[in-house]
């Protein structure tokens, strides 16, 4: 006998990485931010000098101001480049059978697992900078993230599933949806939970229902031929075995799985063996 068939085909895990364009975008943003800060600082200084009619700073003061801006800028730029390229290299996400696993972090490695069952929606955003670098950000929102956001103190609160720098975000959305459909169709592992423990009271009931559902179609019967060979009508056969004539009709159409006792009675009336009368298809 073959084992119980898996109710759905196995879905291959999907593993993905993010684009380097994400690092470029972040570096670009940092430069813009720093330049804005620098420009503000310069404009403010010039305005202050004119406002207070102060003497224009001497050469050495200008150099100090220049280096105090430029050196940190270069240091910041280099570390930003290093940080974001490393971030992209270290980032990975995996869409598994029952959850999404996101691993990221440059200094501290963080591994976030989001069960599909907790996913509430999937947001795909494509901001101004994203558009410049042709990337998308996917946010997987879960039932718990609102509470997490409310509880967080300061800093940027990100949804649990944050996957930046995707060139084709639709793939992820499709993969997750594919699994969500499967998840909602068959509660995970339900067949094991119900059918495996032998002592569950439900067992008899379910296996009975399932067997009834599957059975009829596997039976081929020659009742009709045997009955017509001896010129017996369905009604007479029904009366002889003590069942309604509909039962005989259903049996002959192969829509009904009789009890062994009924099969014996019919075999007796038609004077043949059960195996001659019925065959498992």
């Amino acid at each position: 006998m073959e084992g119980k068939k898996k109710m759905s085909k196995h879905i291959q895990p999907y593993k993905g990485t993010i684009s380097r364009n994400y690092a470029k975008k972040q570096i670009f943003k940092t430069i813009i931010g720093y330049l804005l800060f620098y420009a503000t600082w310069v404009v403010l200084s010039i305005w202050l000098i004119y406002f207070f009619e102060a003497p224009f700073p001497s050469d050495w003061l200008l150099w100090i101001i220049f280096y105090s801006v430029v050196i940190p800028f270069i240091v910041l730029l280099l570390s930003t480049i290093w940080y974001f390229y490393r971030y992209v290299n270290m980032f990975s996400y995996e869409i598994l059978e029952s959850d999404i696993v996101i691993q990221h972090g440059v200094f501290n490695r963080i591994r976030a697992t989001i069960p599909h069952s907790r996913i509430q929606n999937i947001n795909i955003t494509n901001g101004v900078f994203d558009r410049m670098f042709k990337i998308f950000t996917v946010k997987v929102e879960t039932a718990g993230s609102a509470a997490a956001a409310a509880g967080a103190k300061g800093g940027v609160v990100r949804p649990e599933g944050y996957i930046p720098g995707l060139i084709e975000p639709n793939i992820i959305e499709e993969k997750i949806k594919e699994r969500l459909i499967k998840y909602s169709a068959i509660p995970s592992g339900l067949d094991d939970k119900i059918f495996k423990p032998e002592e569950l009271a439900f067992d008899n009931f379910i296996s009975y229902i399932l067997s009834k559902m599957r059975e009829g179609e596997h039976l081929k019967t020659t009742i009709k031929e045997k009955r017509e060979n001896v010129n017996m009508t369905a009604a007479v056969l029904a009366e002889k075995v003590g069942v309604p004539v509909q039962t005989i009709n259903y049996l002959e159409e192969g829509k009904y799985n009789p009890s062994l006792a009924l099969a014996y009675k019919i075999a007796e009336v038609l004077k043949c063996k059960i195996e001659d009368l019925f065959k498992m298809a």
Partner: protein
Amino acid sequence: MKFKKKITSRIKQFREGLDLSQLELAKLVGVSRQTIYYLERGSYNPSLTISFKISEILEKPIDKIFYQEPVIKDILEGKSLAELKEVAEAAGISLEKLASLSEIDDEELTSSFNESLLVKIAIELGMEFEDLFEKEVEN
């Protein structure tokens, strides 16, 4: 007239011959262990497909595994000789004739016993006529 029959199974014997436990057989057939237990006790009338599966696994034809036996045979075999003598006497027949009920087939039953006698015998055995015999349906 016909004997009322019940299905008795030799599942246990064949299963043990194949070195299978109730649980293993149940898994192979795709039913619960309880089903096999009840089948072995003979207190469950299986569906034909389950019977086919069991016959396939035990590699025996269905009528070797599940055989029909007149209900009366079991009852007569369960009585002591003294009890049988009493029943025969009360029904007004010889002990041999009473004992023959556990060997004859439906045709012989119809030819050598009449209904009123069978009703009497059934009552003496502490049963109803319908528990032990069936009336033939007229064509």
